């Protein structure tokens, strides 16, 4: 559009760049393969449950039964995109995740950075964390119910705990991963200890921190749902168990799929935030063709 035979082509910017990228994406096989893949899985699922009605699979709701209920204004088994209850469960779970992930990140990142930065802080705290970390989240359930009142407290506590360990460890390893020469260069250039923390430790650890945050938000969802199944009054995890208890399988699967999509979306948000904060890293990887 901008280029002709005798003028140098102008690189597209802004909206045009976006359009260019979308167009370019559809010239390759990737998007078509993704669509084909999704349909292949759905088709297999349908064949097993509804097409051939294979033994045992008949107990599960097939894709047709699920979508009929999911998109119906009058769902047969109670949950659809038109019922307020559905959104209440989603809202409660998301709110819990936001709180848990927020607390875990707010505590874990600084703690991990300080542990990586200062030998003595690490000596104080790291062994304790390493002993607590392998304890499975479900093993914390009774303790958290004893310790915290109500439904919300224990559920949020469990999600926070799981997420916290991952975040802390990754932030610490992030500092360890920084090349010693950056610290030396910063020293030569006349940095105070605080300058080093701001300009070397934090940005140098960011790639690891964001890898950690992506894992940690996944772990947060994972432990949240487990906690909601054990002790909860609302939320997607509770919905799954409740549906199972009441022998209504469609809402169970709807809740599972919903969790999948929300989980995917939340990781994508974390990834996008990371890419925004680490322009240098994205460009470096792009330079290496990755």
């Amino acid at each position, binding site marked *: 559009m901008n280029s002709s035979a005798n003028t140098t082509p102008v690189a597209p910017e802004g909206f045009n760049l976006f359009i260019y990228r979308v167009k370019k994406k559809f010239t390759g096989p990737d998007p078509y393969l993704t669509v084909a893949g999704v349909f292949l899985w759905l088709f297999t699922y349908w064949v097993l449950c509804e097409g051939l009605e294979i033994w045992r699979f008949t107990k599960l709701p097939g894709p047709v039964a699920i979508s009929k209920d999911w998109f119906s204004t009058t769902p047969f088994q109670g949950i659809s995109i038109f019922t307020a209850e559905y959104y209440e469960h989603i809202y409660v779970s998301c709110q819990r995740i936001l709180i848990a992930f927020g607390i875990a990140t707010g505590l874990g990142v600084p703690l991990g950075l300080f542990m990586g930065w200062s030998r003595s802080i690490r000596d104080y705290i790291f062994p304790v964390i390493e002993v607590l970390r392998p304890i499975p989240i479900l093993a914390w359930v009774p303790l958290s119910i004893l310790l915290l009142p109500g439904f919300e407290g224990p559920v949020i506590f469990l999600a926070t705990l799981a997420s916290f360990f991952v975040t802390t460890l990754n932030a610490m390893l992030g500092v360890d991963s920084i090349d010693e020469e*950056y610290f030396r260069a910063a020293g030569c250039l006349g940095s105070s200890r605080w300058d080093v923390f701001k300009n070397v430790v934090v940005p140098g650890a960011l790639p690891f921190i964001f890898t950690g945050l992506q894992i940690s938000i996944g772990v947060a969802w994972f432990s949240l749902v487990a906690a909601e199944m054990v002790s909860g009054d609302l939320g997607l995890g509770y919905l799954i168990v409740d549906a199972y208890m009441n022998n209504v399988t469609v809402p169970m699967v709807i809740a599972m799929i919903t969790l999948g999509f929300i989980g995917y979306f939340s990781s994508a948000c974390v990834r996008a935030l990371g890419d925004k904060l680490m*322009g*240098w890293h994205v460009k470096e990887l792009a330079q290496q063709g990755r």
Partner: protein
Amino acid sequence: MKEESMAKNTSKTEKKGALSIKNVTKIYDPTGVNVMAVDNCSMEIAGGEVCMIVGPSGCGKTTLLNAIAGFHSITEGSIHLDGELLCGPERPKAEQSAERMVVFQHGALFPWKTLQENVAYGPTVQKALSPSQAMEKSGQMLAEAGLGNFIKKFPGEVSSGMARRAEIVRALINNPKVLLLDEPYRAMDALTKQIMHESLLETYDRTGVTIFFITHDLEEAIFLGDKVHIVTTRPCQLKKTVEVKIPRPRSYETQSSEKFRKLLVEVNDAVHEEAVKAFKAGEREMA
């Protein structure tokens, strides 16, 4: 007596950055077995001199540089800069300071800062300039070094040659007395290296900063240096000093001159002997 001669030295040459390394010894004991990296090594480097250190791999050259920069302590001896004690018996480890700037073997521009931010970093944290002034000066200096179009780029986006040039600018913006370079052009191809040499010589002719340059490349050593100090294999001692009396400014044609070739043979003879010793010592250690 030694103190006197040194004082005379600094007053005679007005240029700053005279390094005096006296009887420096460094012993490591990482596994309880003492390893002597540097043994009673002495060197005098006049202010504004380009001093090239040549020796076999792992001989302790970098240990010497680390001691001057203040990254490591020394076990015995002393190092003075312009008559001031950097490290010695009372103070085994020199303090890190912007008067002694290091350019690293693998390059240590902060990858998370643009070239301009990298260069502006020193004066900003030293509070020598306000952040905006520092950025302005940094932009100017990068432009002078031929990097004007790349100031907003991250180090990962430019070639290794450009990054190395920017790193030298980052050092020079602090007006250091001494520039310490540890094989900065090691991983570069011959053509890039040539450009880097010319750029460094041009910088030197402009600033007259003292340069302490570690290298394995003998041609590089003679082409750049005023003096080539050949050191022995571990423990590091001064074996021989070769003066390079080729007038400046030098251009790459210098390298094909008769004088240059003769110096190369002289240096090569001294280094080869040490390299053979180092190799044999390595074989013994492996066996």
